[in-house]
């Protein structure tokens, strides 16, 4: 602008209150809260006449809230603003919709599983005991065989997947040229492998072992192989991410000191990324530890204690929860109870793994990692 305009504004002194051209009709600040409260109250009143239910109340309130806010905003403000407010309401409701199943699942599994989750349940092998003298079958509640099975099967799967996964990621980041056919193929296959249905992995392990060992091929190791198929791509992907985060300057600094590529990778790159890699591995474990279908296809299920992964059926907590529900003993209530107990134990394991993984990621991430 020119100088005259500036001078102009300076000389013109305001006389009285100046109406601000930028204001427009606007709803009060907390209108959304008021509308929500109103919608809740009105729908409660309506439902009180027809018959009250929590779900109906929430649904009716949500609809009422969106409609009234839309109308209010259209009348007082304008249609564009009204659309904006209604969409904001919609996405918020979408989010609440996702929180409901999460909370509901956790609450249900805690309420269902807490009564059976005793020390005995964790440390005793469950099953039915036949007493020949009284001819009575008594059910022993216990998940020890499943706890051991879970640890062995997941442990062996981890032992298989982690070295392969980390080394493959090292190949992709440190050795391969990005345009090389092998690097591109592996990257693509890893992406596609993350989408393999878990039951297909189980069927694959079963096929492999029946062809190698014969018809009675159920074993914990077979289940571990199935889980490895699911776990390797997750480990590759997360390790790859972490290695890429290590700045190339560190590698160059190391090379410039006359350090070999091997020593650079093992003693500079991996230590820098190790927290992230461990986090990724733990998240991968927490993902496969809850798998059900591939394990009972490959390892079947059993209530007998079996700690040998190379022979005989083996059970995990997830399979136990499924089998206790699907194939209950005569005492159905007790079987369901035991299913809930196994499910809660499993959820606890998964949550602990997740928490530890996040803590490691937070606490041990070295500075210098972007």
């Amino acid at each position, binding site marked *: 602008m020119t100088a005259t305009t500036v001078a102009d504004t300076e000389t013109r002194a305001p006389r009285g209150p100046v109406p601000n051209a930028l204001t427009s009709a606007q709803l009060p600040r907390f209108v959304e809260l008021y509308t929500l409260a109103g919608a809740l109250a009105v729908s409660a009143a309506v439902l009180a006449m027809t018959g009250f239910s929590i779900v109906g109340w929430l649904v009716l309130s949500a609809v009422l809230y969106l409609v009234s806010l839309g109308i209010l905003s259209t009348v007082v403000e304008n249609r564009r603003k009204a659309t904006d407010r209604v969409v904001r309401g919609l996405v918020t409701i979408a989010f609440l919709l996702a929180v409901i199943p999460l909370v509901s699942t956790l609450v249900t599994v805690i309420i269902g599983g807490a009564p059976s989750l005793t020390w005995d349940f964790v440390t005793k092998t469950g099953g039915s005991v036949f007493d020949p003298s009284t001819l009575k079958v008594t059910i022993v509640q216990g998940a020890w065989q499943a706890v051991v099975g879970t640890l062995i099967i997941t442990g062996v799967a981890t032992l298989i997947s982690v070295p392969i996964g980390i080394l493959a990621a090292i190949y992709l980041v440190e050795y391969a040229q990005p345009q090389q056919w092998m690097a591109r193929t592996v990257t693509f296959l890893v992406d596609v492998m993350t989408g393999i249905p878990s039951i297909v992995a189980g069927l694959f392990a079963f096929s492999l072992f029946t062809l190698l060992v014969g018809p009675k091929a159920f074993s914990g190791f077979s289940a571990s192989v199935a889980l490895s198929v699911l776990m390797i791509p997750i480990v590759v992907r997360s390790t790859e991410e972490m290695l890429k985060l290590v700045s190339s300057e560190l590698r160059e600094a190391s090379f410039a*000191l006359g350090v070999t590529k091997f020593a650079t990778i093992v003693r500079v790159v991996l*230590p820098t990324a190790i927290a992230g890699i461990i986090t990724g591995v733990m998240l991968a474990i927490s993902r496969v530890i809850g798998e059900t279908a591939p394990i009972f296809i490959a390892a079947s299920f059993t209530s007998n204690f079996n700690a040998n992964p190379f022979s005989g059926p083996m059970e995990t907590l997830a399979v136990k929860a499924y089998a206790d529900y699907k194939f209950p003993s005569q005492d159905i209530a007790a079987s369901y109870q035991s299913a809930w107990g196994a499910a809660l134990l499993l959820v606890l394991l998964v949550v602990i793994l997740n928490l530890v993984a996040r803590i490691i990621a937070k606490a041990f991430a070295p500075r210098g990692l972007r």
Partner: protein
Amino acid sequence: MSKRINVRDLDVYYSDFLAVEGVSMTIEPRTVTAFIGPSGCGKSTFLRTLNRMHEVIPGARVRGEVLIDGDNLYAPGVDPVLVRRQVGMVFQRANPFPTMSIRDNVLAGVKLNSRRMPKSDQDSLVERSLRGANLWNEVKDRLQLPGSGLSGGQQQRLCIARAIAVSPDVLLMDEPCSALDPISTLAIEDLIEELKQDYTIVIVTHNMQQATRVSDKTAFFNIAGSGKPGRLIEYDDTATIFTKPSVQATEDYVSGRFG
């Protein structure tokens, strides 16, 4: 310790793209040589070929010879790892290893090459290198703390200490002060002046005052246009380059008419 560098007719390629063409020069021991020139003229690329660091970039290769006291870096069977132990490098951005303490950073070259060394030798090497990098007095009380906790200038001197701890013959510096404030820059320049007693130093810089302050000889690189290879235009005593250069382009550049 200090060695002479002889470059004979060196071309540098990125895949099929000729990045630097036909460079020949001799760098005397115990001197500081500055490379100047506009961005993209290939001076950093050329610097990296002096210790084969360009090989880190996929597709980069050279044709020609680089002799260090008569040994060709590019002769068949030469191990780039051994080359880099003789020709150290300091980078644009200070890059101490984030997982290591100050002490371990200095010892990194020795330790990562898994050379065993008694603790007393380690201690004296750490002190010698840090003193050599003018950093000893500032960090001697916190050698066990991570190197990333130091200031930018201190980190860069730590990187220099790390580079001289493997006792190289030549030190390459790729714009070592471009990320530093004037005071830290001055500290590094003073250090270069001292290091010259023991090492052959080659420094790439965008700062022409810096070139006049620290270097004995200056090489001016230029590029005819984008997509064309960079060339060595003129190489002479620093005083000559900045007062009466023989090529018009050099004069235009050092007098600030372009670049």
